[in-house]
């Protein structure tokens, strides 16, 4: 190693640590506040530790907010994933007339700010007596569809249909081809798009606020309400951690499972796979 490469290595290491700090830093005060009972300014660390934030959040109906968020996330995933998958399938193999306009239509919600949709739609939904949950689900589903469609389109682009012919020649029925070949092969992409759709519902604020009509007090809504008052940092921090934890756990689980699968497959086929959650180019946010 000569001096030049050493200096390059030092720069690279410094960059890596800076980047780590960039991603990590904003969450540190959240974690500190979550376990702070009292933390008067200007102390750099809490003067009294405890879980009062979590307890306060719990007493302030955090559980029902958690449940409401869970319902919205799950509904969005359940609605947008199959819709996106079917649309992607049709776009990939259907040779549809107006293929291009349909593609643009399905990606369009990603380019329309949610508040525009919600403000315009609110009164219409009320006038049509659409129940709040149905209204929220509809809008969240439409917001998630660009992402699920995108993920599934890239999955179909890399999907070799001839394996289905192979299965058919080996005696598989149409149903068996679907359940034994197509779904298992597309499972990672389906999981990714379901996860992204879940995130859309899980983290939404303005759609739930305006269309929900107060019947869905989700974690983000509770956080926004708490953030509008003074001295609520422990509750905000506790709610934030509560809100960030489930998707993270989900992500870690999916990651571990797919790694296991990959390992099992790797023994049969040494081609390296890109992890499913990374091929999700469209929509991770």
């Amino acid at each position, binding site marked *: 190693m000569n001096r030049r490469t050493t200096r390059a290595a030092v720069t690279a290491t410094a960059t890596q640590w800076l980047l780590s700090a960039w991603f990590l830093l904003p969450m540190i005060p959240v974690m500190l506040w979550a376990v702070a009972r009292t933390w008067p300014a200007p102390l750099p660390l809490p003067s009294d530790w405890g879980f009062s934030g979590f307890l306060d959040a719990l007493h302030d109906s955090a559980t029902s907010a958690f449940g409401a968020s869970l319902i919205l996330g799950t509904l969005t995933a359940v609605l947008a994933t199959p819709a996106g998958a079917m649309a992607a399938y049709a776009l990939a193999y259907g040779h549809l007339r107006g293929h291009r306009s349909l593609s643009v239509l399905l990606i369009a919600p990603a380019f329309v700010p949610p508040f525009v949709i919600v403000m315009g739609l609110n009164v219409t939904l009320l006038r049509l007596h659409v129940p709040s949950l149905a209204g929220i689900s509809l809008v969240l589903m439409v917001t998630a569809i660009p992402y699920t469609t995108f993920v599934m389109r890239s999955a179909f682009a890399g999907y070799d249909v001839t394996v289905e012919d192979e299965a058919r020649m080996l005696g598989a029925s149409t149903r068996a081809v679907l359940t034994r070949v197509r779904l298992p092969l597309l499972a990672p992409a389906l999981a990714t798009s379901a996860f992204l759709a879940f995130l859309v519902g899980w*983290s939404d604020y303005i759609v739930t606020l305006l269309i929900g009509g107060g019947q869905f007090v989700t974690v983000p809504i509770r956080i926004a309400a708490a953030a509008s008052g003074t001295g609520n940092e422990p509750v*905000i921090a506790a709610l934030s951690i509560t809100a*960030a934890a489930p998707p993270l756990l989900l992500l870690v689980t999916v990651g571990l499972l797919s790694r296991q699968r990959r390992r099992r497959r790797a023994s049969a086929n040494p081609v390296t796979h890109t992890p499913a959650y990374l091929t999700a180019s469209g929509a991770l946010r």
Partner: protein
Amino acid sequence: MKRFVLLILPAAVPTALVLGAAVTMGVAQSMGLTPVAGGPQSSLDAYSAVASSGELAPAVVISLSIALVATAIAIAVGFTTALAMTTTRFGSKVLKGLAISTIPIPHVIGAAAIGLLLADSGWLARLFGSTAGNWPQFVAGPWWAATIIEYAWKESAFIALVVAATLSRDADELAKTAAVLGAGPAARMRYVTMPLATPALILAGTLSFVYALGSFEVPWLLGRAYPEPLPVLAYRLFTSTDLEVRPQAFAVSMVTMAIALVIGVSALRLFRRQVVTA
């Protein structure tokens, strides 16, 4: 053929309905066709009113600036992270883990977190022992720093993962091929890595830009009272106690959508061209 049409309907119909109804109703309400009180009348008064109030132009400028700066930072940081993720062990383990962990955090929480970090009484100010009002005004300051940082923080993780997914396939090997053909580090970056990442950068950058342009909760929590970005302005007019200004809220909303769509469509075109030449 028919089967394929049926398959696309579950996605296409709700999308068309929701977008169509939202835009139609948005236009109608911005033109005073369905007022809260009084009879309907059709006019562009709301547009001229909001334009002449002197609030629309600054809102457009501020929204575009915030989105532009935030996206630029997000692209720079995200691209660097993607490079580290695809070329180094530390990057592929630690940085990837951190970036992925950032993804599921809702923007509302991101905003709260940035507030706890950067506010005048935030953690950094406390760490640096700054109490005398000399802490840089990130939150609610004239430069919208906290708002920009929040977008840049969340979106850089998003961009990093999208770009890394693109680069992970061949970019490292292609860069090495270029090295063997005589390309130094700068030339490899300029002629190989950058062009390979460009389509993904355009796509992810545009999504980030449009998001920053149209999201309400972050500037609302971290921004200042005046002047306001487009979503905050629209929301304030929408929830104003003065019912006369509601059409103006929809006018602002329609202007925002027009800007977002123009940017989205041009970016998609650019993306297509990049992909075609690539």
